[in-house]
């Protein structure tokens, strides 16, 4: 009698549990899992959105061999790799700012708001301003540079050598505050007693940082590194607004290439192929990082 009551209660728990997560499960199944499979399948077809589904042909690996022969693909890959250069700069700055904000400044609360502001700013709206600031002829930045005596300041987004650095600068400007706050929270979480006992032992500021702070925030560093890597490879809307991949192909990135192929040229099959390659690249990078974390991340 008691046992059947118990199992009835357990059954009720099971049903209730699954009912509660049902909306989310539906969403996961429809949007995520189905999308995953669907995009893989259409990457093997020549679907271009127009026309009936039944006219779509399987083309096997044709899309993929076309992708690997496509100059735009390799340029995009190269540009994505180039953008990785911004990551160490970004993380280093965030760490320095966090250390400074932690102990060495006046007006920390106001500074926090100012450093964080670019992160929550509407990207499309502020990019309009950014583009105008960096306008090669009329913009304030170049006016200022000219007043310093630089007769030919960079043409920024109109110059294939300066477009990527400009975009990288924007990326750092918008995300350094966010990473700084994450680091700040991690640093403030460190047990003060560790520092106190280091002081008793006569440790220098540098020593304390190298032997206490840095190792203890290494999980945070790892987390920020992963976020940066994924974000860097997935970026596309900033490119779409700033340069549309130009000048030439100098700012084409994989994310933007997928968007262009899928939503401008409607080559959905091809675009899905590139998307899956991007997915595999990201998974590969994460696996490498996962392996390497044993060497430098302390838990």
């Amino acid at each position, binding site marked *: 009698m008691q046992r059947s009551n118990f199992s009835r209660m357990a059954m009720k728990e099971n049903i209730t*549990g699954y009912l*509660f997560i049902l909306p*989310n499960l539906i969403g996961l199944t429809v949007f995520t899992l*189905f999308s995953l499979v669907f995009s893989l399948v259409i990457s093997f077809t020549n679907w271009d959105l127009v026309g009936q589904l039944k006219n779509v042909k399987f083309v096997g690996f044709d899309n993929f061999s076309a992708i690997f022969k496509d100059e735009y693909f390799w340029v995009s890959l190269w540009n994505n790799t180039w953008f990785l250069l911004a990551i160490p700069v970004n993380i280093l700055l965030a760490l320095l700012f966090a250390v400074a904000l932690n102990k060495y400044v006046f007006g920390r609360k106001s500074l926090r708001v*100012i450093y964080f502001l670019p992160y929550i700013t509407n990207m499309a709206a502020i990019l309009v301003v950014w583009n105008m600031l960096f*306008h090669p002829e009329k913009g304030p930045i170049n006016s200022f540079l000219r007043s310093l005596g630089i007769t030919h300041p960079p043409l920024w987004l109109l110059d294939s050598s300066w477009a990527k650095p400009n975009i990288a600068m924007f990326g750092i400007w918008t995300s350094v505050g966010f990473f700084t706050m994450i680091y700040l929270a991690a640093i403030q979480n460190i047990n003060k007693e560790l520092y106190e006992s280091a002081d008793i032992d006569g440790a220098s500021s540098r020593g304390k940082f190298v032997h206490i702070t840095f190792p203890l925030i290494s999980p945070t560093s790892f987390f920020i590194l992963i976020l940066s890597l994924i974000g860097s*490879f997935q970026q596309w809307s900033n490119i779409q607004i700033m340069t549309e991949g130009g000048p030439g192909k100098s700012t084409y990135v994989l994310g933007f290439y997928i968007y262009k192929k899928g*939503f401008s040229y409607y080559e*959905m099959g091809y675009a899905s192929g590139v998307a899956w390659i*991007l997915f595999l690249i990201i998974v590969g990078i994460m696996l490498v990082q996962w392996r390497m974390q044993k060497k430098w991340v302390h838990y």
Partner: protein
Amino acid sequence: MAIKLNRGLISIMMWAIAIMMILPFFWMLLSSFKPSGEVFTYPVQWLPKRWTLDGYQALFDSKYNFVKFYWNTFCVAFMTIVGVVIVGSLTAYAYAKIKFVGREVVFILLIATMAIPFQVIMIPKFIILRYFGLLDTLTSQWIGAFLNPVTGIFLLRQFFKSIHDDIIESAKIDGCTHLRILWRIVVPMSKPVLFTVILIYFVSAWNNYEMALLYLRSLDKYVVSIAVKMFSAERTLNHSATMAASTISIVPLSLLLIIGQRYLIAGLTAGAVKG
């Protein structure tokens, strides 16, 4: 003495950097009050020689009805928050407090899906939305929040787990169903974390550009982020109007940050760390 000098020096540097970081916002704000011809001058001028609302006038006179775009954005943000709070609470509560078979496995699957890049999903999502006739509707913008508000689920579950089981158990003994426990006991206890989740999703709904670009087409469905971009692309001559458009897009969240900085900064960074 040496410590004070150090602190002073570093403060100066940090403030100098802060001023440089905030300059674009100042230039935008001040330029929106200039006559269009004054925006680009050599040498650079900060304060308007003549303060004017011409930019804003041109903005609201144009075919771009920013009042409508504001309204659209608010609707999307509102529905997003409703979705996250309802579905997020239900789902998080189940993962935290209801013991059902396979709970941990399904949860890990949920987490795993976060690794999938948006690019893989964006094309099939387009197809699905088209199939259900949801393309070019505001619904396409907030439906994701109803179906898979991952960050919200994560944060809420974290918090719900910290609630003592005794409270749940004694309510069950009193005959409460899980639903009642959730809405009558757990949710009222969770106001801080709910507030944080609402802030996080409000920010992301307000700033969202990518989903709007992909799934919206008609002008009257535009949200603020898309509208600003389109407006600036067309109105290349009226610079102060462009600055005015950007200003009204950015100011609400900036005010939100200044007022609610504690919640907003803590919430967004915690949401990222835990999520």
